[in-house]
């Protein structure tokens, strides 16, 4: 199984992030993996964290909420509402980290059938450029500290 490239576009100075990625599956199969709560629990969230799906009700007006539990006991909860759900085609939903209440982003996922499989187009609109930058910089899970640590390592052998 080949790994398809992930194309991420986050133009500087905008509140947008778009992510495109191909999968070797039908749109229906990918849609199912991304909307069936039992299957969602198998991939959503960092591998080193336990995930709890409080609710995951994929229908127009349905709510979702899930919690990542780190090994250090720290919990990160996320929630939102499904606005549009067109099976195998389109999902539009809100997204909010409960640690930053009110910073709600709007996300869409478009399932495009291709000759060999399905192409997933994800678009996010954040409430501000700053919120977008913070989310992208944090990698949603590890924080910019990781990147700064790596830069520090890169520079470390220069300090003598």
């Amino acid at each position, binding site marked *: 199984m080949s790994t398809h490239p992930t194309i991420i576009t986050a133009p500087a100075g905008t509140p947008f992030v778009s992510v495109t990625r191909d999968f070797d599956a039908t749109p229906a199969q990918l849609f199912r993996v991304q909307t069936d709560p039992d299957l969602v629990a198998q991939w959503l969230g960092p*591998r080193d964290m336990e995930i709890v799906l409080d609710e995951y009700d994929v229908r127009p007006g349905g709510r979702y909420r899930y919690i990542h539990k780190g090994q250090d006991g720290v919990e990160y909860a996320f929630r939102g509402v499904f606005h549009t759900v067109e099976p195998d085609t389109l999902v539009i939903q809100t997204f909010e980290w409960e640690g930053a209440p009110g910073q709600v982003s709007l996300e869409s996922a478009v399932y495009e059938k291709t000759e060999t499989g399905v192409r997933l187009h994800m678009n996010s609109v954040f409430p501000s450029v700053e919120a977008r930058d913070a989310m992208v910089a944090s990698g949603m899970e590890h924080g*910019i500290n990781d990147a700064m640590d790596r830069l520090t390592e890169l520079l470390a052998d220069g*300090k003598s």
Partner: protein
Amino acid sequence: MSVDEAALDRAFTALGDPVRRALIARLSRGEATVNELAEPFQITKQAISRHLQVLEAAGLITRSRDGQRRPCHLNPSALEDLTSWIDDYRLASERRFRRIDAVLETVKEQDR
């Protein structure tokens, strides 16, 4: 990420030299003149100046004028561009997509 690839090339090439990394490390503690920067090194002031020109061309440092002094400053935003290029967001996304690949394999197995 959409970043200026040419600028990234210049920045990483500039950092691919131990003397220039040492100069960056020194400037991360505050501005300094060429004389001050040259002090700890066993190389000529002219060589240090050339290294500084490379760092300046790469956008990693800037130079200002303060009377007779021309101190060099680190350009923190250029370093931020480098760290954002390292890009945890991408790594997190790719890990997540590979997990989706794996779940898809089991789903496809069931569908057969």
